[in-house]
């Protein structure tokens, strides 16, 4: 029976997750992980935190004031209204509503004129500033971290791939010597096995599977596979959920707030990649092979946007019944065909 981890469980678990997911990239990840650990350590250490805070405070303030003054005001607005309501008793909603805009104006004025006062107001927001710093390192790690879909989705495909890769390996050993040397070199640098490197170079771009996943529950709303491959429908439901769980885990491990949902957007793999587009009620996750064209992400986003426009209400009220959303699957199949040649 596995023993539960100590307090700071997440870094340990993260290490274990990486173990499962990518043995090959371990070294690269180790370095990045050390960096993250140190960043997390700094976050945990109050004294250090204060020092760091002092360092970046002016910048953060500066940034935030310039870029998000309106948002800050928007956040404060209801709180102030509530405060007034409490002060003046329950029947003073009207008063609060009348005063709120005025106070808002006055706060705006303060923002422009008083740096010191600002500090008080900004305290909760600064936390986010630090998170932002952490997230800079995080991007790299997430990039390296998650060939998970490759593991989970691709079994049957992976088999075919392996055979193909073996064939190519044999070929390389006999013929195209110079080419082979170049590929081997590239493979060494890139840390993939030479056969796979050939594959990555030779593989035409192709969308393998598309998942439309309910953002909160992780339930699978619609799923489409490339005609060329067998349907993974049974696994697809579980994969949708696991993907959502992993996304939550990663976001939490990197101390991300809920406002940054786009963390785990890309999962690289030597043969398969995953790209996730996030919108209000759903994720659109696309598993593909090869190298997509430059406008692939735009196409993905546009497709997702279109689904959202058309099925806005169904997505918002989604409770696990797919019957009102069956047509989405046809859309997704169209999408697979459409981007095939990108």
């Amino acid at each position, binding site marked *: 029976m596995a023993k*539960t981890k100590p307090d700071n469980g997440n870094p340990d678990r993260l290490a274990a997750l990486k173990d499962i997911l990518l043995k090959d990239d371990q070294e690269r990840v180790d370095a990045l992980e050390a960096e993250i650990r140190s960043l997390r350590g700094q976050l945990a250490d109050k004294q250090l935190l204060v020092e760091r805070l002092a360092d970046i405070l002016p910048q953060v303030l500066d940034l935030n004031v310039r870029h998000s003054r309106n948002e800050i005001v928007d956040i404060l607005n209801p709180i102030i209204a509530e405060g007034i309501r409490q002060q003046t008793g329950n029947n003073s909603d009207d008063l609060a509503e009348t005063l709120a805009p005025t106070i808002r104006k006055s706060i705006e004025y303060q923002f422009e004129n008083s740096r010191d006062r600002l500090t008080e107001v900004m305290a909760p927001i600064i936390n986010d500033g630090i998170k932002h710093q952490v997230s800079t390192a995080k991007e790299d790690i997430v990039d390296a971290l998650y060939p998970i879909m490759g593991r989970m989705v691709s079994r049957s495909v992976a088999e075919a791939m392996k055979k193909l890769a073996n064939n190519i390996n044999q070929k390389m050993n006999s013929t195209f010597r110079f080419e082979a040397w170049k590929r081997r070199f590239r493979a060494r640098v890139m840390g993939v096995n030479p056969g796979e490197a050939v594959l990555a170079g030779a593989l035409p771009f192709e969308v393998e599977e598309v998942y439309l996943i309910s953002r909160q*529950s992780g339930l699978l709303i619609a799923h489409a596979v490339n005609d060329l491959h067998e349907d993974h429908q049974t696994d697809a439901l579980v994969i949708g*959920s696991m993907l959502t*769980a992993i996304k939550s885990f990663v976001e939490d491990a990197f101390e991300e707030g809920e406002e940054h949902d786009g963390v785990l957007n890309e999962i690289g793999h030597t043969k398969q990649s995953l790209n996730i587009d996030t919108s209000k009620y759903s994720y659109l996750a696309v598993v593909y092979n090869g190298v997509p064209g430059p406008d692939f992400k735009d196409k993905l986003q546009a497709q997702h946007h279109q689904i959202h426009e058309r099925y806005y209400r169904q997505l918002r009220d989604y409770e*696990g019944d797919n019957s009102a959303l069956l047509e989405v699957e046809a859309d997704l199949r169209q999408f697979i065909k459409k981007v095939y040649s990108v």
Partner: protein
Amino acid sequence: MTATRIQKKICMLGIFGVGKTSMVRRFVFEKFDDSYLSTIGVKVNQKILPPQENSEHKMIQHNLLIWDIEGFDDKTKPLNNYFIGSAGALVVADLTRMESITSLPTIFETFQAVAPEAKLVLVGNKMDLVDKEAPTLVELTQFAAEGDIAFLPTSAKTGENVEAAFQKLGLLLAD
């Protein structure tokens, strides 16, 4: 008439070692290995329940996505995000350990803060190890009655009531 398939996310809740994973294993055929459970603290399995009639007399069939969630100890705390979007939960206590029962209020509170509408079934697992007068069983029965929560004693070892517990939750989900 064919039944409408409806997916529902449910969570397995309870402190370490009460038998959550064993219950799921009894109930479903597992496809993915457990490494995910020990690393990210959750593993999802799927099980299709038999067709049933819902409150509007429509035939439906629940497809449960069962999130087996690790933790609720002093040492580990599950991510609250794992609870989001749950339609129900099977809360597991261990009839051989009173602390699995005293931990219940915190578990309910934490879960319901995220999923207030979720339907709940409480089970007292490892019934094969205790007799009918066991203080834990008495305590748990009373706890369930006071909170008006559906309750069943189960054994993941013998399989007794395991299926019934999930089906009970299925019934509640159809309301």
